[in-house]
């Protein structure tokens, strides 16, 4: 299992979702991806994207000016 990070700060939805999707395409089953965002819409959209693609949402965290979303990649 590898840990990866993605900087999606200052990007508006759906761009952070698209970046997450494109990043995950290159990752392996079981890898973890931590996405850093600022658009509050990502709190809805990235988990929704994970649900439709079957990836596991490990955690979401909302700080004063940053949203941190951790995903575990699930690939058949």
């Amino acid at each position, binding site marked *: 299992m590898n840990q990866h990070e993605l900087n999606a700060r200052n990007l508006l939805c759906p761009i952070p979702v698209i970046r997450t999707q494109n990043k995950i395409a290159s990752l392996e089953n079981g890898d973890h991806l931590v996405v850093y965002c600022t658009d509050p819409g990502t709190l809805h*959209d990235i988990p929704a994207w994970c649900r439709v693609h079957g990836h596991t949402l490990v955690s979401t965290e909302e700080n004063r000016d940053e949203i941190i979303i951790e995903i575990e990649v699930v690939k058949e």
Partner: protein
Amino acid sequence: MSKQRKAVSLISGGLDSMLATKVIQDQGIHVEGINFYTGFCVEGHTHAIRKKDKEKEKKNSSLWVAEQLGIKLHIIDISEEYKDIVLNPKHGYGQNLNPCLDCKIDMVSRAWQWCMDNDFDFVITGEVIGQRPKSQRKETMPIIARESKIEDRLLRPLCAKHLTETLPEREGWVNRDELFDFHGRNRKPQFALAKQLGFSEWSQPAGGCCFLTDESYSNKLQDMWDSRGERNYEVDDIMLLKVGRHIRPAKHFKLIVSREQGENNFMRGYRPMYSYLYPTSHGGPLTLIDGTPSEEDIQNAARVVARFSQGRDADEVVVNYVQKHNGPEQVLTVKPMPAEEIPDDWYIH
């Protein structure tokens, strides 16, 4: 055992593509969704920007639809390539600056390419004949199929019975008898089908899902081209056309005045790219300046900003002018411009 056939569905987030997808899923086809981000999409962020819309949908409607349908959704950013469609539409524009026919051809063609790359068999859309005056007419349906090069692998389940049989129908992958014959602008058949398929909720963004069909938005885009003397744009330009009051006192500059807190927060992110004004003696809007105003223009612009501040009735309002973000600020003390002194044709709407 026969091969599991697979289709990709153009998901806009609206009801029609949701129904078209479900109808085909129910015929045993494996469907995945595709959604193209053009930069003009009315999306979660647009609602998020405007504070008063906060309780409204912040969610991405295409993802929401995909979830209802239980399908994967692939979102593809075409905002750069899409410029050519907006700037040079071969088939022209609709009522506003919406190049719907070219846009449809482009999206279907991309979806078809995606099918070929991913071993899918055909594309479905929620198009209904006669629903949109420009792009969804009986004559345009074959144009889309031909120019996108997909030919007979494009299936429109909601109006298929009005159209020539497609390959998926001929091959028996889908049963034409179970497809529909919807046409025209009456949406009652869609609502009835939604009910029959068990959908009680769907997202129906007012004015559609694309800013280019919006008259006021198109006017702002046209104004931007006219004032710059060239038809072009960056993605940041078209984002800013979605927010604020746009006021053009002269050809060489325009003010973008935030209307409320949500827009103010959003526009703050653009301060490094624009010069700007904001009142300091009273509460009031952040105002970005697009263009190259003179000293005198800045004085006038500050009076306009004061007019939209809480000091609009005061004798004087202090407005700071920042030419370069994080650089020195010029302090201007101005008399708010009375509403009647702001000519109506300064407002771009």
